[in-house]
C-alpha cells in the first residue's frame, strides 16, 4: 500500500511534468506562430515551475518590492525559481530511476538481462556520471528555458517595444514606466563605466541580470538558455537523422554486400574526403537567400547539412559490427524461415549494431555544438533573433578586455562545459555498452576544428 501511495503521488507528478513541459516547450519555440492559440489556452494551467507561480519581474515602490514572489527581491525570486526548476527536474528523474530499480528488483519476471550489465557498469563509472549530470543540467536548461530566464524571449528580445517595465526612479522618487526597448538601450554592456551591467547585478531599471546584459542591453542569461535550446536541438536532431541514414545503409550493405557495399564505400569516402567546415560554410552561403534558410533562422538547413555530412562517419563506425552480425547463424536461420530482408535487418541485425551507433553518436554531439557555434560566430549559422552562443561570443569579442568581459566569456565557458559533459557521458556510454571497445574515433568530438 505504501508503494502504491508513493507511486500514485509520483504519477501525478509526471502528469504535472508533462503539462509543465508542454506549457514550457511550446510558447518560446522560435517561429512557432501556429501554436500561439494553443499556447494561450495552455497558459491557463498553473504549474509549479512556471513564471506566473514564482514571478521575479517586479519593481521597488520606495518601501518594498511589488509583483515579485512573496515580495522578495527580483534576484532572490529568480534564484528560488531556478532552484525549484532544477529540484523538480532532478526529483522527477530520481523518481524514474527509483521506479526502474524497484521494477527490476520486485516486478520483472527475469532476474537478469544483458542491459542490467550495461546499467551496472555505468553505475561504477564516475566520469560518465559526471558527464550525465552536466548533460542533464543543460537539457533541463534547454527544456525549461522560458521558466529559467529572468525575463522572457518575447518581452526582452523579440518585441521589446511592445512591453513596458515599471521601475523606481531615484530622481523623482516615484515609480515610472518605460518601454522595455528603451530600457534596453539604457542598459547595454559596451565596456567602461556606466555602459556596463555586470553579471549578478541590477540595471538602472531595477531589472536583475544573472549574466549581465549583452551589448544591446538585452538580458544575456535569457539568450544563453535559449541558445542552449537551439544548440542541443540541432545536435540531437542532426545526429538522429545521420544515425537513421547510417544505420539503414549499414543494414543494406551488410545484408547485400558486394556492389552495394562498394558503392557506399565510395560515396562515404568521397564525403569524408571533403573538409567538413568548408562544406558547411559553402552550403550555408549557397542556400543563403532561399526559403530553407529562413526556417527557424537557419536551424533546419544546418540540421540537414550536418546529417548529410555526418552519416558516412556513423556508417563507417558500424560497418564492421554490421558485417559481423550478418555472418551469424541466426541470420541464416531467419532467412530460411522465410523472413523478408527488411524483417531480418530490422529484427535481427539492427538491435545488435544500434548500441555501437549510440556510442559514436554520443561522442559526436559535442563536435556539432562547437561547429554550430563556430558557424554562427562567422555570421553564417543561426541568424537573429534566435539567440546562439557563437553569435553572443562574436558580439562581445571587442569587449573581452573591458568590464563587459562577460558577453564573450560566459557563453564560451558554457560551450566548453557542455561539450566536456557530453564527451564524458559518451565515454561512460561507450565503457558501459562495450567495455572492450577501442578508444573510438576521437576526432569525432572536435567538430572539424571549429
Amino acid at each position: 500500500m505504501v508503494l502504491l501511495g508513493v507511486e500514485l503521488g509520483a504519477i501525478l507528478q509526471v502528469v504535472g511534468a508533462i503539462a509543465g513541459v508542454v506549457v514550457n516547450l511550446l510558447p518560446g519555440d522560435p517561429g512557432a506562430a501556429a501554436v500561439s492559440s494553443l499556447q494561450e489556452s495552455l497558459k491557463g494551467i498553473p504549474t509549479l515551475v512556471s513564471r506566473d507561480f514564482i514571478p521575479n519581474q517586479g519593481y521597488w515602490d520606495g518601501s518594498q518590492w511589488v509583483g515579485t514572489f512573496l515580495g522578495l527581491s527580483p534576484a532572490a525570486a529568480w534564484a528560488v525559481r531556478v532552484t525549484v526548476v532544477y529540484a523538480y527536474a532532478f526529483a522527477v528523474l530520481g523518481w524514474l530511476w527509483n521506479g526502474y530499480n524497484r521494477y527490476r528488483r520486485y516486478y520483472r519476471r527475469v532476474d537478469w538481462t544483458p542491459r542490467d550489465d550495461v546499467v551496472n557498469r555505468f553505475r561504477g563509472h564516475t566520469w560518465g556520471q559526471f558527464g550525465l549530470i552536466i548533460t542533464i543540467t543543460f537539457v533541463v536548461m534547454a527544456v525549461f528555458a522560458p521558466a529559467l530566464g529572468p525575463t522572457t524571449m518575447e518581452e526582452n528580445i523579440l518585441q521589446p517595444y511592445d512591453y513596458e517595465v515599471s521601475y523606481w526612479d531615484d530622481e523623482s522618487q516615484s515609480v515610472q514606466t518605460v518601454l522595455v526597448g528603451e530600457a534596453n538601450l539604457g542598459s547595454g554592456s559596451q565596456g567602461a563605466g556606466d555602459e556596463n551591467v555586470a553579471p549578478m547585478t541590477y540595471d538602472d531599471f531595477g531589472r536583475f541580470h544573472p549574466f549581465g546584459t549583452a551589448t544591446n542591453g538585452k538580458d544575456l542569461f535569457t539568450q544563453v538558455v535559449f541558445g542552449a535550446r537551439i544548440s542541443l536541438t540541432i545536435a540531437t536532431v542532426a545526429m538522429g537523422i545521420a544515425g537513421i541514414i547510417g544505420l539503414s545503409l549499414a543494414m543494406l550493405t551488410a545484408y547485400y554486400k558486394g556492389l552495394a557495399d562498394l558503392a557506399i564505400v565510395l560515396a562515404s569516402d568521397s564525403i569524408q574526403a571533403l573538409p567538413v567546415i568548408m562544406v558547411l560554410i559553402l552550403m550555408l552561403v549557397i542556400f543563403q537567400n532561399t526559403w530553407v534558410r529562413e526556417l527557424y533562422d537557419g536551424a533546419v538547413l544546418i540540421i540537414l547539412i550536418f546529417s548529410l555530412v555526418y552519416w558516412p562517419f556513423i556508417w563507417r563506425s558500424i560497418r564492421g559490427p554490421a558485417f559481423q552480425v550478418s555472418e551469424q547463424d541466426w541470420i541464416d536461420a531467419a532467412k530460411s524461415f522465410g523472413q523478408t530482408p527488411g524483417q531480418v535487418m530490422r529484427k535481427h541485425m539492427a538491435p545488435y549494431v544500434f548500441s555501437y551507433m549510440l556510442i559514436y553518436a554520443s561522442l559526436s554531439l559535442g563536435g556539432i555544438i562547437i561547429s554550430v557555434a563556430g558557424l554562427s560566430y562567422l555570421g553564417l549559422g543561426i541568424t537573429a533573433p534566435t539567440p546562439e552562443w557563437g553569435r553572443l561570443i562574436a558580439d562581445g569579442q571587442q569587449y573581452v578586455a573591458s568590464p563587459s568581459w562577460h558577453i564573450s566569456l560566459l557563453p564560451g565557458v558554457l560551450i566548453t562545459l557542455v561539450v566536456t559533459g557530453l564527451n564524458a557521458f559518451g565515454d561512460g556510454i561507450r565503457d558501459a555498452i562495450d567495455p572492450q571497445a577501442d578508444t573510438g574515433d576521437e576526432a569525432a568530438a572536435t567538430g572539424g576544428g571549429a
Partner: protein
Amino acid sequence: MSRWQYFLRRVLMSIPVVIFGTTITFALIRLGPLDPVSAILGTQYNPQAAEQIRNNLGLNQPLWSQYFDFMYRLFTFQLGQSWVIAPGTTAYELIQVYAPRTIWLGFWSVLIALFVGIPLGFYAGLNPNTLSDYVASFGGIVWRAMPNFWLAIMLVTALSQTGQWTNGFFTWQTWIVKTNVVTPPALGFFQSPLQGFIEDPGGWINSFVRATKQIAPAALVLGSASMGNEMRIGRTAVLETINSNYVETARAKGVSGRSLVWKHIFRNALIPLVPIITGEAFLLLGGSVFVETVFAINGLGWLFFNAAINGDLPLIGTLMYIFILILVGTNILQDFLYTVIDPRVGYEG
C-alpha cells in the same frame, strides 16, 4: 593479401574518391541557387551585362559540357581565375600568396601539439591514477572541448593585456622581438632562405624568431584539439602496452627500465597515434578558417571564407579541389605509415 597489395588497393581507391568529391563540389556550386553572375556584378546588376558575362564565362553551355570542362581543367591543374574577390588573378597566384602563411601555421600547430600532447600523455600513462595523471587528463579533456574561435579570442585578449596585468614585468608584444598579437606572420625571409642566411645570419634568425612568435598563439589554439586527442590516446596506448604480455616478458628477462620504456612501450604506443596525427589535417584545414579570422592571418582558410561569402565560385571550386587532394593525400600517407609501422595491417582487409 600482402601489406603492399593492400596499400596499393587503398591508393587506387582514392582516385574515384577524388573524382566523386570534386563532382560533389561542382554540383554544389553550379546546381545550387547561388548565381555567380550577380555576385560578379554586385550592385551594378543589369540583364544585358549579366547575359554578356554569362556568355563569356560559358555558363550558357549545357551542364554536362560545363561539368567535363570543370573536371578536365582541375585534373590538368588549370586552376582558373578568381571572378569576384581579385578579378583576373589566377587561382594559382592567389594560392601562392596565401598558402605559405597557412603552411607555416599548420607546421607549428602540428609541432606544438606533438611536443606537448604526446609527452604529457605518455607521462600520464606511465604514472596512472596519480594526481598528476588526473590533472593532465582532465586538463586535456577540457582543453579539447574549448571551441577554437573562442579560445583564440581569449588568448588574443590575454596576450594583449599581459603588460597591464603584470605591471610591465612581462609584455608579450615586446618579449624577445617586437610584434603585434593580431597579425599575419612576415614570411619574406623564406624567399631565398639559404642566401639570406649566409648574407645576414643575424637578421635572418631575427625574422625567423619574429615569424615564429607571430604564429605561436594561433598555432597553440589550432593545435588544441589535436593536443588533447594525442594526450588521451597516448595515455591509453601506454597503459595498454604496459599491461601487455610482451612487456611483462621483457621485464622478466631483465630488460632495463629505460630500454623497456623506449624500445618496448614507446614504439608500440605510437601505432594508435598515427591516425590522430594524420587526422590533424582535417582539424587544421577546418580550424584555419576560424583561427585565421580571429588572428587576422590572411591564409588559405581566410581566402576560402572570403571567396565563399563573396560567391567567388571558380575560386571556391579550385580551393575545394586542393583541400580534397590534401586530405586524400594525408589518408594515403596514413595508410603508408601503417603499412610500414604495423606488420599486422592487411591481414583482415
